[in-house]
């Protein structure tokens, strides 16, 4: 199956630069995380990929075709977004019907099971549901729609821990049964770390990371110990972030450690989780810019 390629996409709204020369490839049947602080341009990027916004520069290509105004391509992409795409009177079941009419072969069976599990009334209007239940209804739709590339913009917005767990489980289940691509944009990094294979990080309108989670975490280290020992050990490294509590210093680096360089006895080296790696990456980027 073909990959979805984003080639040199930039976006300006008036004088504000939202995205600056973003290039990335989204493979079929893979789960991605799209990370970035508010205003980094995540939603805009997703809107451009799905042809809801035009890029100021660059293009989005699926296989041999530019996605823009190309019906067979658009039929393979689905974006669940935060912005309200439905009319005021659209009900939950109406949303399912639209997805069925638009994409065909909607999985009503799964949808009914999920709305029941989430406690969503299918006859209720979307505009009358709480934030959490609206999200639950929308992710239900996204998991049941017939498309190859599913983009989920903030799919955990307002969901409580129970509902989030159910979502993760159902995502894994449907992904195993019918592998397709999911791109999850979220701030709840720790909870999606084990779900995703690959991560994109947007920061300050640029793409600063595009890497397999395993590779990234394999070379993401927390180095802590007495300040001078840590300083000495990390002398030749690019320290992305650091904290000092009393005499103990913790440095965050993302690079391959030199096997030849012995780790001092009083220094501990551990791996980071995805959230720490994300914070280190974005912080490191800020320091370069300062």
């Amino acid at each position, binding site marked *: 199956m073909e990959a979805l390629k984003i080639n040199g996409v930039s976006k300006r709204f008036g004088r504000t630069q939202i995205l600056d020369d973003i290039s990335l490839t989204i493979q079929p049947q893979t789960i991605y995380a799209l990370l970035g602080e508010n205003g980094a341009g995540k939603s805009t990027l997703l809107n451009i990929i799905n042809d809801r916004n035009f890029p100021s520069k660059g293009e989005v290509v699926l296989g041999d075709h530019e996605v823009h105004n190309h019906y067979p391509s658009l039929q393979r992409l689905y974006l669940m977004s935060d912005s309200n795409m439905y009319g005021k009177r659209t009900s939950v079941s109406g949303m399912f019907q639209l997805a069925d009419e638009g994409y065909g072969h909607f999985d009503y069976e799964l949808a009914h099971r999920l709305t029941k599990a989430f406690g969503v009334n299918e006859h209720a209007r979307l505009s009358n549901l709480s934030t959490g239940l609206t999200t639950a209804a929308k992710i239900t739709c996204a998991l049941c729609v017939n498309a190859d590339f599913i983009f989920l913009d903030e799919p955990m917005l307002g969901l409580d821990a129970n509902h989030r767990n159910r979502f993760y489980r159902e995502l*894994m289940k449907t992904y*195993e049964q019918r592998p397709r691509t999911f791109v999850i944009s979220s701030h709840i990094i720790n909870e999606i770390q*084990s779900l995703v294979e690959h991560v994109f990080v947007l920061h300050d309108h640029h793409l600063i990371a595009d890497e397999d989670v395993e590779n990234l975490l394999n070379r993401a280290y927390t180095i802590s110990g007495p300040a001078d020992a840590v300083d000495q050990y990390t002398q030749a490294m690019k320290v992305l972030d650091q904290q000092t509590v009393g005499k103990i210093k913790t440095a965050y680096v993302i690079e391959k450690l030199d096997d030849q360089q012995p780790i001092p006895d009083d220094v501990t080296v551990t791996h*980071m989780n995805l959230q720490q790696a994300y914070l280190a990456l974005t912080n490191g980027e800020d320091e370069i810019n300062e």
Partner: protein
Amino acid sequence: MNFHFDQSGPLYQQIADQLEEMIFTGIYREGEQVPSTTQLSQELHINPATVLKGMNQLVNRQLLEKRRGLGMFVAAGAQEKIMETRKEDFYHDYVQSLVAEARKLNINEAHLMNLIKRGYQNGSTED
């Protein structure tokens, strides 16, 4: 089934290690079926590719075997194999660090031997 994950290394490695531990301690006996990739992936919220990678490590070490259409089963002699590997690893995993730590604490060889003896005695009374 009780998996616990930390930041000690790649997730697939932790899955492999913990499954191995479960086989070693006899939670899953030889010839018994272990949870499927699907089950583990759904219960633990882990990408199936990661789970599969961990399981394949055990398959490559012939601790698990795939039975077509049925799932993954603990291979015959798996426990024995784990025991052998662990014995091989025992020297540099435990003995070397034990001696290194003992040196730091100025514990000489005879003293260390005594301590080990004491450990064995206490251990046997506790059992």
